[in-house]
């Protein structure tokens, strides 16, 4: 009744091709983004920023990155943790080598460096497909983590191999280091995520995105209609690694503040982000956010509910939480194998014909 586009006439191609052609969608998204930018910074606390919103936003960005490669272009990758590490270490080296460099430029450069590394590891994707590619990228994961453990130049010869972020400012507000206010770190991260999500959405509906999807759906057919697999796949690797690299830089510099390669960027991170896009929805930007929210916020919500709400012992709640998370993942995948984004879409379809379903 409320959610239907009857009467919304498009009079130009521009209007017809808008990101959100339905007015209700558009207003809803604008309201959410406005609230995120204007309202949240005034009410945010240390706990909300560091425990909930920062990890959610940063993992959402990484999930968008992986979704570009796996969801849109169909190249299965298990190297995400390693690429996060490249972004983090690139930002650390740039920040310590050029202290005057603006932090936004540092992060973009970290993304570019990661993109180059990603392309390098993407080259075998021409000959290796499917599960075999997953194994090849798995090798990159282990190699990169090993490299950052082994070569002291990457961690500036610190005694323990830990990297620690120096304090940096944007427009006079500290955004890294322990003295940064939660509102500043949140807005900074949100800015990155919002801009890059918008870019990803547009990339995916444009020429490049369509050629990715053509490769994903059937690479031989795509080649026959004139899409060059080498170029397309490598662009997907580059863009995806760029996103993951920026996410890695944010993860290290803004959220954690210090990191060591084995723990912060281990293989479990690769799986975590892969699970995010599978649960959220392959080939969907919205799905990346939903998957990230599900995988980062749900465990904390379950824990807080059990420990604070029901008074369960923390250790027991941890075990129960693991079981519940597993059950929920199975539940959602049975209910909708195409992920939470598809559930959301179905809900919208139902809303459009409500109250007269046919």
């Amino acid at each position, binding site marked *: 009744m409320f959610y239907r586009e009857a009467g919304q006439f498009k009079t130009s191609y521009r209007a017809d091709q808008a990101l959100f052609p339905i007015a209700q969608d558009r207003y809803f998204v604008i309201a959410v983004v406005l609230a995120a930018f204007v309202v949240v910074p005034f009410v945010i606390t240390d706990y909300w920023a560091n425990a909930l919103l920062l990890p959610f936003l940063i993992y959402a960005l990484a999930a968008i990155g992986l979704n570009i490669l796996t969801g849109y272009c169909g190249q299965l990758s298990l190297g995400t943790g390693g690429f996060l590490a490249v972004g983090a270490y690139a930002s650390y080296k740039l920040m310590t080598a050029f202290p005057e460099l603006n932090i936004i430029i540092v992060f973009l450069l970290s993304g570019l460096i990661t993109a180059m590394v990603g392309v390098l590891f993407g080259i075998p994707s021409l000959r290796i497909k499917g599960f075999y590619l997953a194994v090849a990228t798995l090798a990159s994961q282990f190699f990169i983590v090993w490299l950052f453990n082994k070569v002291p130049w990457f961690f500036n010869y610190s*005694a*323990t191999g830990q990297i620690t972020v120096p304090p940096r400012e944007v427009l006079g507000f500290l955004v890294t280091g322990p003295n940064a206010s939660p509102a500043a770190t949140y807005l900074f991260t949100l800015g990155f995520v919002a801009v890059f999500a918008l870019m990803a959405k547009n990339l995916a509906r444009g020429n490049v995105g369509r050629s990715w999807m053509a490769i994903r759906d059937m690479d031989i057919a795509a080649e026959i209609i004139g899409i060059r697999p080498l170029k397309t796949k490598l662009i997907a690797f580059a863009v995806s690694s760029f996103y993951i690299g920026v996410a890695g830089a944010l993860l290290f510099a803004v959220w954690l503040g210090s990191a060591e390669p*084995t723990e912060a960027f281990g293989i479990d991170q690769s799986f975590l982000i892969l699970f995010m896009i599978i649960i959220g929805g392959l080939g969907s930007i919205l799905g990346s956010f939903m998957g990230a929210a599900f995988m980062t916020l749900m465990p904390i919500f379950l824990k807080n509910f059990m420990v604070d709400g029901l008074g369960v012992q923390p250790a027991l709640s941890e075990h129960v939480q693991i079981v519940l998370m597993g059950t929920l993942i199975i539940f959602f995948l049975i209910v909708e194998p195409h992920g939470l984004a598809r559930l959301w879409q179905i809900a919208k379809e139902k809303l459009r014909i409500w109250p007269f379903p046919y």
Partner: protein
Amino acid sequence: MNLKQLTLGLAAAAAMTGSAYAYELTVPTLDYRTGPYAPNGIPFANGFSDYFTLLNERDGGINGVKIKLVPCETSYNTKKGVECYEKTKNAGNGALFYSPLSTGMTYQLIPKVTADGIPLYTMGYGRTSAANGKVFKWVFNVPMTYWDGATVAVQYAADKSGGMDKLKGKKIALVYHNSAYGKEPIRTLEVMSKKYGFELKLLPVDHPGQEQKATWLQIRRDRPDWVFMWGWGVMNQVAIKEAASIRFPMDHFIGVWWSGSENDVLPAGAKADGYKALAFHAPGADFPLHKDIIKYVYDGGKAVDPSYKDRVGEVLYNRGLVNALWAAEAIRTGMNIHKTKEPTAAQVRDGFEALDVSEARLKELGLPGFTFGVKVTCANHKGPGKVAVQSWDAKAKKWSIVTDFYQPMDDITGPLVEEDSAKFAKENNITPRECK
């Protein structure tokens, strides 16, 4: 779980936080009772909590003020640690100190506690250079550091070989957890290997440490004279079992104090006999304090983990106990200095800095001869730094300390501490404070 339960739960939580309480000393406990490090995390967490519970039950708290423990499960994961820190720092009347029992988490928390003004007490772990109180105002690592431990392990090896000059040409292998924790002793050992002419082999083991076949194959091939180990969690048990299977002489295998508890050696059975580990306190439950704990905490039904009763007195349990004891004394000292019943985290920090637990005081607290006396000053946050060696008797299933307490070699670690803390000060724009 339906909506009704959810709302009820949330309402209960709101009611709990909403109602007014009398002042309590808030002590967050960042435990890990799950994951691959749980076998070591559980005894420590139990000892830590039991001591505070005992103070509440027997003495009515510290100086008559009750202690409130706020547990949070970290699984030895730094990301969960961040969440736990943020969640607990404003709990109750505000966290008075943190002891995360994780070197990785310590590195993450050092800048945060410095900004938030909460003392961080990392007993024998964490960042070694925090011993320099001029730079690390909020961090304490009483009673000794990893670098002290490394010098003692070398001294012990030298004693058994007949003097420091006999180390020349010897081979020492370090099997370490490939993380900030395991890498801590490397710098000291490197300096010592140059000075004393022994050859140092570094053998990293990746998290969680269940797979060490290659490492021990290498040891079998190289035949080092000594193997030192900086291990934690399941890595310890696996290493000792592997060492036994290649028949490496156990009395030449020395673990750090985190690699020398009952559950590390028991899985290897009789073959672990003679395995050595560093130690800074006695094992066993024969102290008056343990009797009180059994009486007030376990028999009183107040224990966090009631099934643990028979294991009270294990090495890591005692370690949690002494961690809590020193921290409790620091809180007491802070309360006495500022003559208050409601100390703030900053006042507790002053207490840590004036901490003075002599052997006589230990006896009063029910632990006669348990460990050495410690004294903290403004410049020295690590205390005396003494370490002994303990040995495992597989037949009696008992640890016992077999040497006197060694003095650490401050001439070696001193300059390294200066260098590392100066680096931290420079990175974080800290001007070292003056200490009178």
